[in-house]
């Protein structure tokens, strides 16, 4: 058994996650490996990109913890790291909660103003 530590990412880790996701090719690589594990050479073929260029992108995703890599024979295989991907989403999900709170407060305030005051 492997213990999965789901601690909140540190600020430095968050930087790495956002940096990794700021590039269209890396997002696409991530989408592909979420679907299923892929070899680095298969990814290179998909983008008509040199192997080192794809390796560079994979390394950025790997530093952010979004993907993992393992060597099987002569092949390097890339797989998604779902815990980390979820954490990136959670950042924006938390901001969504703030806005839901604001909208509910605005809505309640309007309702309160609408209600006739009991006493002047």
């Amino acid at each position: 058994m492997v213990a999965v530590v789901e601690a909140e990412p540190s600020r430095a880790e968050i930087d790495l996650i956002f940096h990794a996701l700021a590039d269209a090719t890396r997002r696409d690589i991530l989408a592909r490996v979420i679907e299923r594990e892929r070899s680095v050479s298969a990814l290179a073929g998909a983008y008509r990109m040199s192997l080192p260029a794809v390796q560079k992108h994979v390394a950025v995703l790997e530093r952010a913890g979004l993907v993992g890599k393992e060597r099987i024979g002569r092949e390097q295989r890339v797989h998604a790291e779902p815990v980390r991907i979820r954490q990136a989403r959670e950042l924006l999900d938390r901001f969504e909660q703030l806005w839901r709170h604001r909208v509910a407060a605005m809505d309640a305030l309007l309702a309160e103003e609408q209600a006739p005051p009991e006493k002047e």
Partner: protein
Amino acid sequence: MPVLDVEKDLDNLTMTVTAEFAADVERVWALYADPRRLERHWGPPGYPATFIQHELVPGARSHYYMTGPAGEQPHGIWIVREVDEPRSFVVDDAFADEQGEPNEEMGWSQMRAELTPVDGGTRVRFVTTFASREQLQQMLDMGMEQGLTLAMNQIDGLLAEESAAV
């Protein structure tokens, strides 16, 4: 529920919230134009806001602070960029010191609000754009850890009104 839709864009660090309110455009506008109304919904859960200075006119600076659960008072500043009353406004938002001087290191986020009259009320699109993920993170660190429990306490009276109206 008044929130109709939430769109998140991880790449551009923007979030768009679309909500609908059962009030006309002028009343919804007043929730942002009037500092006493604004401070009743702007602060994150557990961090009620107090606006020391606020006027929704182009070029104006708003200065506010929030009071946290431990008594801490982080300050914030708005610079009003665009106002097209009662249709839209754009403000830049940043953390600030007690004098209202922006913390340039953290950078600015921008909020655009667009109000549209619809049948029976007003639809509002709020688009927030963050300059950096640190900025997003810091904002989330403030208050959001407290969760919704505090939010419920903070706006308990308001929510009671809301549920009574349903």
